[in-house]
């Protein structure tokens, strides 16, 4: 019955709105005919930027005075790094439980963060046969650039690399990937825009196997994690790869370091859909710290594998928890 009630309510609302709308429309037309006026935006005074100082000194000073102020400062520092309120509160609790006058709060915090992030891990690629790396993420997170850099890196390690351009949705995605493939000396398989991504992957696996490639990296269209049909499409890509005779060895989620708490929702949705094995944290060359990966690791157990630090062909590195923690501490 709900569906009927639902539809009826919506129609009713729309209908009533239309009845009331004639006056609104007249007013709108009147306004449209009026001469244009200059825009004056409302001004809300921006607070003065805080002086940059190292956490260590600030917290140490506060701690020496004692009191909760120090812990609040620590909490706020984590919040500014996008760690998020709950993960930040948990972290501060852990540090607080271990802290004594003799201990260094900065080192404790670093240790706790490294502990959460787990041991640094490498991409797992098979010693024999074709390894398939599926790269997924929301629009604009940096998938294509990451693939270009990764292809170059793997090629530099002496592997033969193939790339599948399965982003058949975005305009010129294939052309962008092709430029990167040339830079990396990788072989690329793509089809025209609007083609079925599954068929691209099927062709790519077949051709990579035939050429004796070591790795096939699959680029996928950016998709918001809330769009179910698009998430289903990713599962299909995995199935097609298996059908073509290879299995996905790594599924990398590309996460923009400027992303806030929505990163948790992204990681959850992609993990549920395609079993994400690792995260590539991109755009770490800006001011963003990417603290949300702490919450992602805690809640989902997905490790960070690689970091992107620029648009240059070599701006990709294995993730190091210690360096990451230091960036958060140095604010």
């Amino acid at each position, binding site marked *: *019955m709900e569906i009927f009630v639902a539809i009826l309510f919506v*129609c009713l609302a729309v209908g009533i709105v239309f009845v009331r709308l004639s006056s609104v429309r007249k007013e709108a037309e009147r306004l449209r005919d009026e001469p244009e006026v200059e825009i004056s935006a*409302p001004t809300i005074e921006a607070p003065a930027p805080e002086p940059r100082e190292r956490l260590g000194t600030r917290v140490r000073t506060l701690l020496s005075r004692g009191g909760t102020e120090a812990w609040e400062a620590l909490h706020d520092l984590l919040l500014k790094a996008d760690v998020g309120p709950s993960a930040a509160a948990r972290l501060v609790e852990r540090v607080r439980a271990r802290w004594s006058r003799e201990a260094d709060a900065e080192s404790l915090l670093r240790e706790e963060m490294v502990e959460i992030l787990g041991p640094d891990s490498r991409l797992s690629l098979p010693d024999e046969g074709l390894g398939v790396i599926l790269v997924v993420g929301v629009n*604009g997170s940096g998938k294509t650039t990451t693939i270009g850099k990764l292809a170059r890196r793997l090629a530099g390690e002496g592997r033969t690399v193939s790339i599948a351009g399965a982003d058949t949705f975005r305009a*010129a995605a294939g052309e962008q990937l092709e430029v990167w493939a040339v830079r990396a000396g990788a072989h690329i398989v793509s089809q025209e825009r609007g083609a079925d991504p599954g068929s691209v992957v099927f062709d790519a696996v077949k051709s990579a196997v035939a050429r004796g490639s070591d790795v096939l990296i699959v680029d996928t269209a950016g998709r918001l994690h809330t769009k179910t049909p698009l998430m289903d499409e990713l599962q299909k890509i995995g199935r097609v790869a298996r059908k073509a005779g290879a299995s996905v060895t790594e599924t990398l989620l590309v996460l923009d370091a400027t992303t806030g708490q929505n990163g948790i929702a992204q990681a959850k949705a992609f993990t549920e859909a395609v079993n994400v094995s690792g995260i590539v944290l991109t755009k770490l060359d800006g001011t963003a710290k990417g603290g949300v990966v702490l919450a992602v690791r805690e809640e989902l157990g997905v490790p960070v594998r690689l970091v992107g630090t620029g648009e240059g062909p070599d701006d990709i590195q294995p993730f190091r928890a210690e360096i990451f923690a230091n960036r958060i501490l140095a604010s």
Partner: protein
Amino acid sequence: MFDTLTAKLDGTFKKLRSRGKLHPKQVDNALDDMRTALLEADVALEVADAFLGRVRTRALSEEVMKSLTPAQQVIKVVRDELQATLGGEHVRFVVPSARRAVVMMAGVQGSGKTTACAKLAFRLKKDGRRPVLVAADLERPAAVEQLFTLGREIGVPVVSEGRDPVKVAKAALKEADRKGYDVVIVDTAGRLHVDEEMMRQARRIRDVVKPDHVLMACDAMTGQDAVIQARAFLAEVETTGFILTKLDGDARGGAALSITAVTGKPVFFAGVGEKPADLEEFHPDRMAGRILGMGDVLSLIDKATDTLDADEAKASAEKMLQGAFTLEDFLGQLRQMRQLGPIQDLLKMLPGMPGGKSAFKDLADQVDENKLRQAEALILSMTPDERRNPGIISGSRRLRIARGAGSTTSDVNTLLKDFEGARKMMRTMMGGGKGFPGMFTMPPKAARGPKR
């Protein structure tokens, strides 16, 4: 899109409402809850604290504390301040029409500049302007090709002559003047605000094209970094406003609050999908209402006026008020509503009680798109007579209908029973045609039409 923040604030307000008299300590507890909610929604720390500070001062004033309904007053204060933080009044995006105008798009990598340029061009073209797109992003591989493709799709010319973005922009202005294009939209490369050289380049493009607007594309999913970026772009290229992109996901949209609060520049548009038409005007008052779960009936109106026939919609609403609609009407309505968007989303736009959650949110959660499709198939399998008068549906007709829709007779029975139930329920609720008291009353301010 603001679901989670709404849910959080709901809980906080419920706690407040359950008390008759307010103690300052209770207000502080509520504010603490709210701080967590805002930070989880990615509101910048400094903006959240400034916002809560203002709410606290006003909430603890004598006027509020001594009023008969202090909790309600606090909620009102929150709503007012939220709207103020989102930029106060809606600011209309105006480009001069008496001469050739220029709009420059800027932002960090992956914020959605190129898509936003195409959507803006599409919108201006629809408004009767003659826009031209300039591909001045020469950094990202194939960015120029991307804009050319998008331009072809929306029927807007694209120019990109030269190897230096400043020269490309300069040449484009000349071309526009020669060919009589009246709005030049310049897409630029994504650049990090810390990249001094690239920021200087943006400044040079700005100096050459002398834009009427510099729009910064800002990803709605951005966290605390949003305010740092927004300030840097404001300082370097004098941003005049924002386009908030990717708002069709589940981003809690804290960036929307933060960037306006720290720059004083309005959000003009929100990107809400992948199609050229998926660019909506941004209304702070509506957005504030949405955050607090007050529904967004005004956005629904905008959608409806764009897609539906007014007279038809009026007529069917009247039928509904009299409880005289049939399965045929229902089918027509279902198809019309589908044009507006997923039914769940529409339901969430309907208003509930102030400060409470939308009355239709639970309903929205129960609507199953598969069931909807099944119902549609069953109704389509009926003859027009059967749709108008379900009473004539006998056992054999039931079997035929079920077969036609690929389901069972028990599904047909459920459908008919549910429809009758819904019809009865609507009749009771509408009190025989008098309507829902106050339910669809528009706020008087909003009824005055678009603001500038």
